[in-house]
């Protein structure tokens, strides 16, 4: 789960990381009022789950409250990587003497948390990694001991030369690690971590990604989910126990299992079509899941054909077939459906579908080619 910058800043502040003040506005007038309260130059930042906000014009400085209103008006409602900006963060603009990067992630290769720090802050860390990997220092943490004091100091000393700044940074790193672990994050980063002209070390931006698997035991973090910042269909799918990701094509696919769903999308592309979505109905056989899946897919106006690809293991093909028949009664479907079912209770499923007037096949390649052809004809 992604959370916004202002939410990550709030978490870090609670853990003692020095984060300058800032407030959220959803209208230009609110931005103006916040800027007037600060009584100084402010920065206005789009709160959206996408990187590269600055380059997209989603971060602007404003000298006066009136300018804050105008700049907030320009940012609110804009689209960044397909996501609409509904909120902006308004914060006093800091004077910056230096910018560093500090971050901690769960590293798949070492199977442990890994810190990365760099004196090259304020830019995309991936760019730094590609351009000058030697500019990034890494430290693997033993999760049973956490980030030890001397390790935090060692990292801090690679970033700063002045003892006071090294100590301040070491404390920030240890607090960042606590926030990371106790929030159930898979990533927590401060970019940039700045020094001001009078030598203070401060976090002026924060980013955290939360491991979805942590949410069941962290209700206070789960509440941070902003459903206005994600496509409504994805919210609806999640609540129905489905995994759905919208794509740009016109073939809507319903598949059981994530790997098979990806392979189905790839096969659509292989035969010259474009998938409209990733949709995994999971391992359950509940016919309601099929009905919900079809409801979500048919709402996408781009979809010209629906493709079912079900491999029955635990999932019983006859349950899926019943779901398809049920859905066709409850939803007004004007687009063709092609169905592939194989595995557990395949014969029974084919009979159910045939008696309801649906055709079905047991070959994945055959139905995908059929779907691509139908989509081509409809386009």
């Amino acid at each position: 789960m992604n959370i916004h910058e202002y939410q990550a800043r709030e978490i870090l502040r609670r853990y003692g990381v020095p984060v300058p003040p800032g407030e959220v506005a959803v209208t230009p007038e609110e931005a103006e009022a916040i800027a007037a309260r600060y009584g100084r130059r402010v920065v206005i930042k789009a709160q959206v789950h996408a990187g590269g906000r600055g380059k997209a014009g989603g971060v602007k400085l404003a000298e006066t409250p009136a300018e804050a209103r105008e700049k907030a008006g320009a940012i609110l409602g804009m689209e960044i990587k397909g996501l609409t900006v509904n909120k902006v963060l308004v914060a006093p603009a800091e004077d910056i003497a230096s910018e560093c990067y500090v971050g901690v992630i769960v590293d798949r290769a070492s199977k442990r948390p890994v810190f990365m720090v760099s004196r090259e802050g304020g830019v995309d860390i991936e760019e730094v990694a590609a351009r000058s990997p030697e500019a990034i220092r890494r430290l693997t943490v033993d999760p049973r001991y956490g980030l030890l004091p001397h390790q935090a100091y060692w990292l801090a000393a690679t970033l700063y030369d002045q003892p006071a700044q090294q100590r301040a940074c070491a404390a920030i790193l240890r607090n960042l690690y606590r926030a990371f672990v106790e929030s159930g994050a898979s990533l927590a980063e401060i970019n940039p971590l700045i020094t001001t002209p009078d030598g203070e070390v401060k976090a002026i931006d924060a980013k955290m990604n939360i491991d979805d698997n942590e949410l069941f035991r962290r209700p206070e973090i789960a509440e941070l989910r902003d459903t206005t910042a994600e496509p409504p269909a994805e919210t609806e799918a999640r609540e129905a126990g489905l995994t759905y990701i919208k794509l740009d094509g016109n073939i809507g696919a319903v598949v059981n299992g994530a790997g098979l769903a990806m392979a189905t999308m790839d096969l659509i592309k292989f035969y010259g079509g474009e998938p409209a979505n990733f949709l995994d109905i999971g391992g359950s056989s509940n016919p309601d899941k099929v009905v919900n899946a079809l409801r979500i897919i048919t709402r996408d106006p781009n979809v010209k054909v629906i493709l079912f690809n079900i491999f029955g293991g635990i999932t019983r093909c006859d349950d899926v077939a019943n779901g398809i028949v049920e859905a066709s009664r409850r939803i007004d479907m004007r687009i063709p459906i092609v169905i592939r079912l194989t595995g557990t209770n395949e014969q029974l499923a084919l009979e159910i579908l045939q008696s309801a007037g649906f055709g079905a096949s047991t070959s994945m390649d055959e139905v995908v080619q059929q779907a691509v052809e139908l989509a081509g004809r409809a386009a």
Partner: protein
Amino acid sequence: MAIFADESTRLVVQGITGRDGSFHARQMIEYGTAVVAGVTPGKGGQTFEGPNGVRVPVFDTMDRAVAETGANASVIYVPPAFAADAILEAADAGIKLIVAITEGIPVLDMTRVYPFVAERGARLIGPNCPGLISPGRAKIGIIPGQIVTRGPIGVVSRSGTLTYEVVHQLTRAGIGQTTCVGIGGDPIIGTSFIDCLAAFEEDGETEAVVLIGEIGGTDEQNAAAFIRERLSKPVVGFIAGQTAPPGRRMGHAGAIISGSSGTAAEKIRAFEENGVRVARRPIEVVDLIREAL
């Protein structure tokens, strides 16, 4: 021969009285696996009635189950909140093969579980995996028994149903398997592609290997390098997620392209540069394996 699971497997089912645990315990017994014990805290002393008249004693703790039945493997169906501790309990009880089916274990839990299990010399498969099956010998997990048949191919995969798809095609083409292992779709898993490849290389019956990967991480790239250096047996690869958008988690917690790394193109390139033939469609795996044998 086969890898990890065979006729000598004596299995404990952790969570045997739950909905999933009881269903799959029956399936495993039906397949002929020696399910010797079940564990559910608070239900010790009960008996689990399996198919074919098999009666399985239920214990409160893994320690008791192992002491009284001589179990040497365990399979975990407990909910995510308790699954990490179930893995640790199995390792503490001296189990050397632990298969965690559970999906949804927090990844930070796994950062602590992994070294604990490794220090006790146990092998963990999963979590978030379908388990493994050695056709005609033993099944640990949820891979459907009817889609496999005994033969010379080792199969290792990060996926569930995609594995079934490929294995089913092999079986229909008359090409059987030594062992099919689903290593799991999470970012941190106990057994890697490399671990399985090394085991298949050692296994006398395995003549060729099918490796089914997907986007996210570098496990496939590492496997490709390992194959070039250490494997004498041919390997056929498949990678799912060529059309997956970056930055989105494609169902599996580990199936995500982070920035520009972990793409299908990168993995396919690594395979091809290291002499692994890559199937473009799942069905092509059958042809490539036929040519390799």
